[in-house]
């Protein structure tokens, strides 16, 4: 059905072929097995919906970007306008790690953003990519393509939201290319309602000296699965992945973060903070790889879990696969536990109630990551009120 | 007395940046020299170069020790010639006990297979002098030691290994008055026992010189010796600060 729609808006022939091939492959491909840790804790079948209504997300505010050097288009318009670039790069970062689900996206996507940031960019304002879902019982396959030219410095906020009570599925695939020395500050905000199943595949490719600040703020969703992989293919490239998960009620979050050090002297840092209330649960699986020929790399990984109720559950597998001894530093650390009673005691001695003290501590716990959201924007206000609402509930 | 160490026109770089620019110095047998200077003036580059740290590259010049050109000697070969460096920041080595480490070092340096019993006796004597608890003998080198304990451990190693040329890189930093006195007394005792041993003492402060009397004082500035003199130079520095010297330099230029 995605195919019909595509033909309607006259997609280029190569794209139609691509979709066809993906559709055929999708039919025969099995869901990923659950032996390796990518799907150990969450059933992939959740993200293979039987819903037949395919819908587009509303790309709120796309019209706003008519500045020099900032090209923000509907993905299809982008494909048409930059056909040569897209024929070469579109889909090139998609591996077969989550094959069935990326094929599902590839064959059915109908909406998403094309972002091309060029050297002549002038404004330093953050570019916001908002995807909103309004319809019940629908499937939203979204495809984003982000291309940052050499040496450009930009801030992007990818925000996914929905009406509170709608029950739908979203499958997003985002590809990010960073040119030599490019700097991207990227935030993925999961603000969907608590009934949506949220699946995101994100792939980033960093050229020499590129820097990516990759932040996940995961607040919404029924079951949310994020599979992110950054490939450091250029020397001296740097990625910092940080994230917060704030789960309540019966929410389930599953983040799989891979950093692949392909080139020498590359640096990565991971800081993932999970706070869980009620019966919420979280799986964090990280994988740091340093290739044989990647010398002098520095990789650290941290995962902190705060279990705030008797029924909260957390799983963590921070893997390291190191194929060279020429490492600058390579380490990971995980902590799991409940709120520090000494801290609560300290705050209560200053007059806070136990509930208030708890809230203060959780806010402090997620604060370093929240600080990454551009201040005084519509988005930061929305995030804050969503957090407030989650902390006050129950 | 004869020359123990002669340094001529020494240029040294680290990470492709030249730090020492044509330094000259000579130290005679039995002398105590003091090196003072600000942070970043090249003092630690100098001590590490003397001991043969692989990251420091000699671009030009010569270091002659006991008549041997040691430019290309590894640090263990320098140690065998009788050099010793008391580190500014001694590194910890997990799992390697102090007693095992010092014993092996003595074995390598002196070739003597001192019996474990005699060794322990000697070690404890020296530990007494430095007021180091015996339990430190079986602890892992510098692991979990306080700043002062690390410094005393360096002096302990010096007195056990009995070198003929001792470089002490800020043995006084981070010490309280009592520990400083202990360390200084140990150095003096050692010097009394081995009068022929020469000492190169790097320090920020005049304080330690209340206990240890130098023959010569050198002041480092921007990777070279800016001024040399007797103990009075240290007092002058203490009074007037390094700026005074810097200005004096400028006026000379």
């Amino acid at each position, binding site marked *: 059905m995605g195919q019909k729609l595509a033909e309607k808006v006259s997609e280029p022939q190569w794209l139609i072929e691509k979709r066809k091939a993906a559709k055929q492959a999708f039919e025969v491909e099995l869901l990923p*097995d659950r*032996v*390796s*840790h990518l799907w150990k804790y969450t059933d992939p079948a959740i993200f293979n919906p039987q819903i037949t209504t395919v819908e587009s997300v509303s790309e709120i505010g796309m019209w706003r970007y008519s500045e020099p050097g900032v090209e923000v288009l509907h993905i299809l318009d982008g494909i048409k306008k930059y056909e040569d670039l897209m024929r070469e790069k579109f889909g090139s970062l998609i591996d077969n790690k989550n094959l069935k689900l990326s094929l599902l996206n590839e064959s059915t996507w109908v909406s998403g953003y094309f972002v091309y940031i060029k050297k002549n960019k002038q404004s330093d304002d953050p570019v916001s990519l908002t995807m909103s879902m309004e319809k019940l019982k629908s499937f939203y396959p979204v495809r984003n393509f982000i291309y940052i030219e050499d040496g450009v410095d930009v801030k992007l906020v990818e925000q996914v939201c929905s009406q509170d009570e709608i029950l739908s599925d979203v499958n997003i695939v985002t590809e990010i290319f960073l040119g030599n020395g490019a700097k991207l500050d990227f935030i993925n905000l999961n603000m969907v309602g608590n009934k949506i199943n949220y699946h995101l595949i994100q792939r980033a490719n960093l050229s020499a000296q590129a820097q990516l600040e990759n932040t996940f703020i995961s607040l919404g969703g029924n079951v949310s699965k994020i599979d992110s992989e950054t490939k450091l293919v250029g020397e001296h490239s740097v990625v910092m992945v940080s994230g917060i998960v704030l789960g309540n009620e019966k929410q389930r979050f599953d983040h799989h973060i891979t950093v692949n050090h392909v080139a020498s002297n590359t640096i990565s840092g991971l800081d993932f903070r999970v706070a869980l209330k009620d019966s919420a649960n979280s799986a964090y699986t990280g994988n740091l790889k340093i290739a*044989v020929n990647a*010398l002098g790399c520095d990789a650290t990984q941290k995962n902190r879990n705060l*279990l*705030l*109720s*008797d029924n909260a*559950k*957390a*799983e*963590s*597998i*921070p*893997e*390291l*696969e*190191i*194929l*060279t*001894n*020429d*490492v600058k*530093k*390579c*380490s*990971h*650390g*995980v*902590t*799991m*536990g*409940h709120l520090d009673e000494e801290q609560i005691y300290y705050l209560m001695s200053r007059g806070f109630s136990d509930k208030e003290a708890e809230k203060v501590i959780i806010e402090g716990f997620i604060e370093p990551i929240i600080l990454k959201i551009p201040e005084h924007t519509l988005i930061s206000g929305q995030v804050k009120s969503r957090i407030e609402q989650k902390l006050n509930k129950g | 007395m004869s020359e123990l160490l002669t340094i001529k026109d020494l240029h040294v770089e680290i990470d492709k940046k030249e730090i020492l620019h044509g330094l000259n110095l000579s130290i005679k047998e039995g002398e105590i020299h003091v090196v003072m200077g600000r942070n970043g003036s090249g003092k630690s580059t100098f001590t590490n170069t003397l*001991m*043969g*740290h*692989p990251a420091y590259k000699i671009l030009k010049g010569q270091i002659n020790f006991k008549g041997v050109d040691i430019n290309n000697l*590894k*640090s*263990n070969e320098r*140690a*065998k010639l009788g050099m*010793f*460096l008391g*580190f500014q920041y001694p*590194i910890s*080595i*997990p*799992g*390697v006990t102090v007693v095992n*480490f010092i014993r*092996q*070092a003595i074995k*390598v*340096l002196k070739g003597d297979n001192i019996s474990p019993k005699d060794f322990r006796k000697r070690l404890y004597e020296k530990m007494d002098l430095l007021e180091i608890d015996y339990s430190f003998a079986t602890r*892992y080198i510098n692991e979990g030691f306080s700043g002062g304990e690390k410094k005393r451990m360096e002096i302990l*190693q010096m007195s056990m*290994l009995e070198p003929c040329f001792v470089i002490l890189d800020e043995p006084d930093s981070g010490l309280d008055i009592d520990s400083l006195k202990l360390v200084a007394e140990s150095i003096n005792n050692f010097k009394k026992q081995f009068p022929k041993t020469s000492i190169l003492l790097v320090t920020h402060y005049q304080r330690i010189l209340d206990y240890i009397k130098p023959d010569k004082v050198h002041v480092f500035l921007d990777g070279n010796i800016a001024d040399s003199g007797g103990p009075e130079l240290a007092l002058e520095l203490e009074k007037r600060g390094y700026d005074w010297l810097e200005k004096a330099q400028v006026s000379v230029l």
Partner: protein
Amino acid sequence: MTLDLNQDQEYKYGFHDTENYTFKSGRGLTKDVVLNISKMKKEPDWMTEFRLRSLDIFNQKPMPKWGDTKLLNEIDFENIFYYVKPTEKQGKTWEEVPKDIKNTFDRLGIPEAERKFLAGVSAQYESEVIYHSLREDLEKLGVLFFDMDTGLREYPEIVKKYFATIIPPEDNKFAALNSAVWSGGSFIYVPPNTQVEMPLQAYFRINTENMGQFERTLIIADEGSSVHYIEGCTAPTYSSDSLHSAVVELIALKNAKIRYTTIQNWSKNVFNLVTKRAVAHEGAVVEWLDGNMGSKLTMKYPSIYLIGERAHGEVVSVALASGSDQHQDAGAKIIHAAPNTTSVITSKSISRNGGRASYRGLLKVHKGATGVKSTVKCDALMLDANSRSDTYPTMEIYENDVKIEHEATVSKIEDEKLFYLMSRGLGEDQAKLMIVNGFMEPFVKELPMEYAVELNRLIELEMEGSVG
């Protein structure tokens, strides 16, 4: 003596004896082989049935899909000898042991060690325990220390009560294989409030090419008792592979303490696929000290189920992966299933000369296990650029009143440490060896003196260019 870090040392225990055996099964695994083992051992019916059931499970279970699947799939089950009986009679004194077998153990230093500091010794050669002894005073206290076959014959009630309760054949394919063809291993029972002060030791030796050794060990420490068991293993170097697949079950009853020490030094043609598991009841302590020096592929994750309040579990493991023909896939599993239980995992691995060392671990806290404290620390040292280190830790925490910390580091020998040691006169190789030994120290210091010395020597040899 000069050290050469770039060369592999020759395996010291690679010699083998000529075969002069009472019985050797054909190659391959069939129902007849299993029945024949059971019949020769004159086993009770329940055990024969257990073996046959296990064989079915083995045949049904697929090979593991995780771990080093490439190496695992090299195992040719049809090419293995499943049961080899070297002699008719078990010796009570070393004089009773057939001469060439005794020579082997002489060369391994076992009788000498026994005289010096062991409370009991068991020596297994191929499928059977050929020598066995226990100090008389312990015998009088009621301590039982036998080979597993004798244990089954003489104490069937105890064996039946505990056997395969910790590791059922359904657990995994190799546990099923062991359950079908097991032979030898140790059976230990320590009566309540009895402390076995000196270690009991078992030594396992494979001699035949393509041999499969499947010993089965069961240790029960009754309330308030304590015991330390040590095992060592070696095999000759052959061009084709042997298989060692043991099952070890430990039961520490209320306030009991079991320490189980392994120094595995199989030759590099042995697949070492072992299931080891313990349960610790209220206030009990179980410690696995697990040293992996040899083998082609080791997959072994000693586990502890802390099922009683205040039980404590500890795993200290070291692995040395040396050469591109060696993969040490080792680790630990701790399951907290009761309140106020505590655990510590310390893992140290060294990879060199293209070797691969993997840590694979699980830390699980069940709901209701409040007040749990656990620390997991994994350090990997890599000595050269073509080696590999992996860390696969898993944490599943289903209770909020816990305190869990996990840390892992991968590093090479730091230049600053080398400089420090060399500035005191040590040569580069000597300094490196000192750093490596220091790295292993948390394991070595837990060993009885004689083993610590032996292990340090082993590391030194492994790091050296040649023997001697």
